[in-house]
């Protein structure tokens, strides 16, 4: 409990940069995480926040979006929680292959594929009262301190 950092932001796009700042500051404090992994996490968390904010906007909910960073022994976890209507991450439409000229009609739908690729584990817990996306990076052994 006491070991997590929690950040709650107004559900507005201009606050996502602050989330990135906090996540990268905490993650780069872990000497075992390479800069590239910090960038991966930053982008994944940013995408999850974008979705959370859009979920609030869609149903006109004015609650804040909550970001929780938690350091385990050899894991770094970030979860993003919203109070939107939820969705089924297992049944998202697929994009046409990139070689198909139709591909250019899809300007959206890249966020969740990015999240899945960038972090070592991701869990979606979604229901009528909101969604929680938990992203995990493996850190190897943590330095003393």
């Amino acid at each position, binding site marked *: 409990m006491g070991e997590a950092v929690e950040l709650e932001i107004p559900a507005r796009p*201009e606050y*996502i*940069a602050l989330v990135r700042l906090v996540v990268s500051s905490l993650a780069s404090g872990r000497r075992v995480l390479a800069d590239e992994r910090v960038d991966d996490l930053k982008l994944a968390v940013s995408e999850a926040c*974008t979705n959370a904010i859009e979920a609030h906007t869609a149903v006109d909910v004015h609650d804040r979006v909550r970001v929780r960073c938690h350091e385990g022994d050899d894991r770094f976890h970030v979860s993003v929680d919203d109070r939107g209507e939820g969705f089924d991450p297992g049944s998202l439409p697929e994009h046409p292959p*990139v070689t198909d000229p139709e591909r250019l*009609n899809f*300007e959206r739908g*890249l966020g969740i594929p*990015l999240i899945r690729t960038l972090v070592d584990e991701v869990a979606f817990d979604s229901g009528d009262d909101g969604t929680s996306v938990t992203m995990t990076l493996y850190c190897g052994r943590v330095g003393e301190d």
Partner: protein
Amino acid sequence: MELGLDVTERNGYAILAVRGEVDVYTAPRLRERLVELVSQGKHQIIVDLEGVDFLDSTGLGVLVGGLKRLRSHDGDLALVCTQHRILKVFEITGLTKVFSIHDSVDAAVGGE
């Protein structure tokens, strides 16, 4: 948060140099600028991403939208990018196959 958007011209190309973080908050400004250029008749656009610190899926979407718009005018949207962390985002999403990505503005203008 500031998004730098500077336009210069060279050999009939409009070169849009982007600086800062492109995310869901700032991407609309990039979209507007692209739309504006197209409506001014610039159909060969090079977007220089060397000054970009961060690019998310909304930013990718805006670039895909720009490319689509230009293709419909028989034009093209090419990119300049050598930063590993930005290239990685194009690679993961398969968009390296959709855009021509160059190492420098010189190379992009030269059509390499």
